């Protein structure tokens, strides 16, 4: 096992090396003016530390998987986790030494908070995967490595303040996901999911590129601050090119986070992809899309925000209504969760729409709560499906709690949290989101959100109904399966505990997300017109000063 240990440390180090690099860069002389000197290249690498560290670790994992194929079953997941941990460390170190942003990329508290969200979600997805990929005979090195690459794309999307970088992040996020969706090659559904996701995803990416081109044509750059400046100077809706470009960018992101009417791929892909991949994609891809949206909308809010708000309002309402309505009719649990994830995107959009520090903070909290819950729900589904993913429909779940009371209890907890019932995290997430939305006077939309939640309660309850209240159907021998393997049982139990406690003890998380939101809200603002391209990020407390009036953040800006 010596080689295992060596690989473990190698991967950690590969990611963590970005931390000393960060220190070194800080120690060096300030960036030379203009031009792409070595120094400013260092800065760029430093600011992209989270994504870069994760990519490095992912490369190492892939190489280890290639040269040591037998590691895939047992050792590799832990190596992947080491890489993720190393990335976390590098992120903290980089943020400590050089918290700031180029005009294209920022390493502010929002990026850091978001990085931790994504890294945690990826780590959990890896843990949930272990038993599954071993059972389904797909334990190959690429699996974990692709997940990490995809997460790196998500980190890049959250840090990007330029459409070109956003595009790079989106592609880095998506391409591994296309592969992962088709990872269960033996199953036709999985292949279909991959193809469908790829075709529609490529289509969405092209929207982003074309949108970026239009923006460039209009304001002469692709940075968010340029868009913001452009929309301010050009005035309300004056420039059709900019508006069209921004709308296309919005469409690309709406596709990624599955907003109605750009959601058609979701149910098929969620159903066809291997379940842990679905779990990963449901939180990481969504979170990345929303992070980018938050930055874009915050930047855009300085200019003509009225018409955008109408658009976002309509998207949010349509997504909540349509997602929840269609979920009612689902028999397949993964499809049900797919429609539920669409509906949740609609709720999350409330936070973007509110756009205040409070709204963004609520959105971050919601993502954390939703991530814990959805990872758990898909994790239980992956276990209950049994070998070959045969048991995925509600009738298959009938009376399952008699055989697996533990899994039944966990799934009930996750469902109640998704439905937003206290004391679980989902409730508190909704509470903060509604508070933010009502502050900005979105009463109608909040009422729609609330009424659609009632619909949602029905289909979430159905899962616990079939599991706990209906009698088991005639016993299929292979369904009886063992209790979940120890590792995934422990992971799922921790997730359930997290879902229960996150809401009740939400203060620390809220403090952290509020800090991150103050940074995000500043996106695209106050770019010094001076010599340096570098925008120094003040410590959050100072930066908070203009936003916080007295001891409170004003509700109405």
């Amino acid at each position: 096992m010596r080689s295992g240990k060596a690989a473990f440390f190698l991967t950690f180090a590969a990611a963590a090396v970005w931390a000393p690099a960060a220190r070194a860069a800080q120690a060096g002389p300030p960036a030379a003016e203009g031009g792409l000197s070595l120094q400013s290249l260092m800065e760029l690498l430093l600011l992209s530390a989270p994504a870069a560290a994760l990519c490095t670790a992912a490369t190492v994992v892939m190489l280890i998987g290639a040269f040591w194929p037998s590691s895939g079953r047992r050792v590799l997941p832990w190596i992947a986790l080491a890489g993720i941990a190393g990335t976390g460390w590098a992120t903290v170190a980089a943020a400590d030494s050089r918290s700031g942003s180029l005009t294209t990329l920022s390493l502010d508290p929002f990026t850091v908070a978001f990085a931790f969200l994504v890294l945690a979600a990826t780590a959990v997805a890896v843990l949930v995967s272990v038993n599954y990929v071993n059972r389904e005979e797909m334990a190959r090195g690429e699996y974990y490595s692709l997940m990490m690459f995809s997460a790196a794309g998500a980190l890049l999307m959250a840090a990007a303040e330029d459409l070109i970088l956003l595009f790079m992040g989106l592609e880095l996020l998506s391409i591994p996901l296309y592969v992962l969706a088709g990872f269960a090659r033996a199953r036709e559904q999985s292949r279909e999911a991959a193809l469908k996701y790829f075709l529609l995803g490529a289509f969405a990416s092209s929207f982003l590129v074309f949108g970026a081109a239009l923006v460039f044509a209009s304001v002469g750059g692709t940075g968010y601050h340029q868009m913001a400046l452009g929309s301010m100077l050009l005035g309300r809706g004056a420039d059709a090119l900019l508006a069209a470009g921004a709308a296309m960018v919005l469409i690309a992101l709406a596709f990624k986070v599955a907003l109605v009417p750009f959601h058609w791929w979701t149910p098929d892909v969620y159903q066809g992809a291997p379940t842990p991949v679905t779990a990963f994609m449901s939180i990481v891809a969504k979170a990345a899309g929303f992070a980018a949206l938050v930055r874009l909308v915050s930047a855009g809010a300085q200019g003509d925000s009225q018409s955008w708000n109408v658009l976002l309002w309509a998207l949010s309402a349509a997504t909540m209504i349509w997602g929840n309505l269609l979920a009612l009719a689902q028999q397949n649990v993964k499809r049900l969760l797919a429609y539920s994830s669409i509906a949740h995107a609609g709720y999350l959009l409330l936070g973007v729409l509110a756009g205040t520090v409070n709204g963004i903070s609520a959105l971050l909290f919601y993502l954390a709560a939703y991530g814990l819950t959805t990872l758990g729900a898909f994790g239980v589904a992956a276990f209950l499906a049994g070998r070959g993913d045969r048991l995925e429909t509600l009738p298959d779940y009938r009376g399952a709690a008699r055989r697996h009371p533990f899994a039944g209890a966990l799934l009930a907890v996750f469902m109640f949290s998704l439905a937003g019932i206290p004391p679980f995290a989902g409730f508190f997430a909704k509470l903060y989101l509604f508070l933010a939305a009502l502050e900005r006077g979105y009463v109608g939309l909040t009422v729609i959100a609330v009424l659609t939640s009632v619909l949602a309660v029905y289909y979430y309850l159905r899962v616990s109904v079939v599991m706990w209240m209906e009698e088991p159907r005639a016993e299929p021998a292979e369904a009886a399966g063992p209790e979940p393997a120890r590792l995934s049982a422990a992971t799922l139990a921790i997730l359930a505990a997290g879902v229960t406690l996150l809401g009740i003890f939400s203060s620390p998380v809220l403090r952290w997300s509020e800090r991150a939101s103050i940074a995000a809200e500043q996106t695209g603002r106050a770019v010094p017109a001076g010599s340096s391209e570098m925008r120094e990020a003040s410590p959050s407390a100072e930066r908070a000063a203009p936003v916080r009036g007295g001891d409170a953040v004003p509700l109405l800006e």
Partner: protein
Amino acid sequence: MGTEQFQKHILTIITFLPLAGAAVVLLMPRQAAGAIKAAALLVAAATFALSVPLFFWFRTGTPGMQFTVDVPWISLLGQQAIRYSVGIDGISLFMVLLTTFLTMIAIAGSFAGITDRLREYYALMLMLETGMLGVFVALDLVLFYVFWEAMLIPMYFIIGVWGGPRRIYAAVKFFIYTMAGSLLMLVAIIAMAVMKYQATGVLTFSVQDLYGLEMARGTQTLLFLAYALAFAIKVPMFPFHTWLPDAHVEAPTAGSVILAGLLLKMGTYGFLRFCIPFFPEASLAFAPVMVALGIVGIIYGALVALVQPDMKKLVAYSSVSHLGVSVLGIFVFNLQGAQGSLVQMISHGFSTGALFLLVGMIYERRHTRLIEDYGGIWAAMPKYGAVFLIITMASIGLPFLSGFVGEWLVLVGSWLASPWYAVLAASGAILSACYMLWMLQRVLQGPVTREENGSLRDLSFREMAVLVPLVAGTIWLGVYPKPFLERMEPSVDSVIRIVQTAGAESPAYFQSAAAEEAR
């Protein structure tokens, strides 16, 4: 822990002791049925025992909150916006005592009826107790709402897993109905906090701080309706009562006891604690509607109960009727009415709880609840008959039993508001005598029409032990209600006063009152 410390934290201890007990019960081995039952009963009894001192320590003559604890819970926007804030006044004191008392009885009453998945059942019962206690002690709206909804989860499982043949339908209907009402209340809660915040810069969900919040008339009306819907569904007031018969009939006996005895009271409690003090003008404006719905509930519930062939359904509809009395008493806005309403709530908890237990006990023997399957069982079960008779009399409001005190006070109160209210409400009391006595006659008296009924086992010691405390409660409340009334009076009075002040200040109401006087 010294007595003083104990006294300070008593509400927290009482509220969370059952939850801790639930965790213990869940960890016990599945096969140890006897130990599981004993542990659950022990926890419930301990909770009750700890809550009894509240009654004695409670200072009479003051309307304020007592035994308060108020610590920061969740910070938002750099403020300690959401607080763990608990306390009781003369209104919630009795709700807390009723909860600990009835839960103990309900747990003891389910020893024979529940045979499957005991651990889960008793753990859920104890969780339910924590939820209900939390609702009655919470003084922060978010805290209140958390308990208010969290409590649905155990009740949903109790009905859905251990209930009758249509249990799933009943459980889901119960859950969704209640949830639909409460979510709008959640929006109203947040809206109130936001208004307060925009007016004063302080973000708070504290009930005390939100009393007297200034708001426009239209806003007040909307918010009142959002709250009122949640509570009206819970009570349940006509026409929102349709979930109740289903839930009651399908729930296991203990579930019905808790539903009728406690859950429904959360609705009337909510009116007294939140709806009316928050929105006095809107409450006054809607009083005629609420009174009308209350009276319709009284008469409609009684008439439907009259024709039920199923005993459990009959008792369920009688709850609609009795709770109508309670709503009427609240919305006539005078001391007698409101006090009567509160007494009616306690009394209904005793008598209906006992009735469900009685129905459950013969159901366990004969596995039918149809009235026509019985007849003349008094001869075989004299003890059962005696208890049944006393409880029936309490339920229809015979003097010196609990039902009388509540109904009489409500009738006085409604007479003061308008004699017509009293006349209509009294007709409900007469109808209740009809359906209850008729059921008594058909079940207990007359010839033994079926062979099986001749040889029914009389009440066992355990069953007597479950029922006697309830009988004692009805008699105490009926004969000597003073300890109850003096404790609730100041608090009830302060609620009524808020409305009366608002009425005096509000010109529209003033004019109509003056017009009445002129007539």
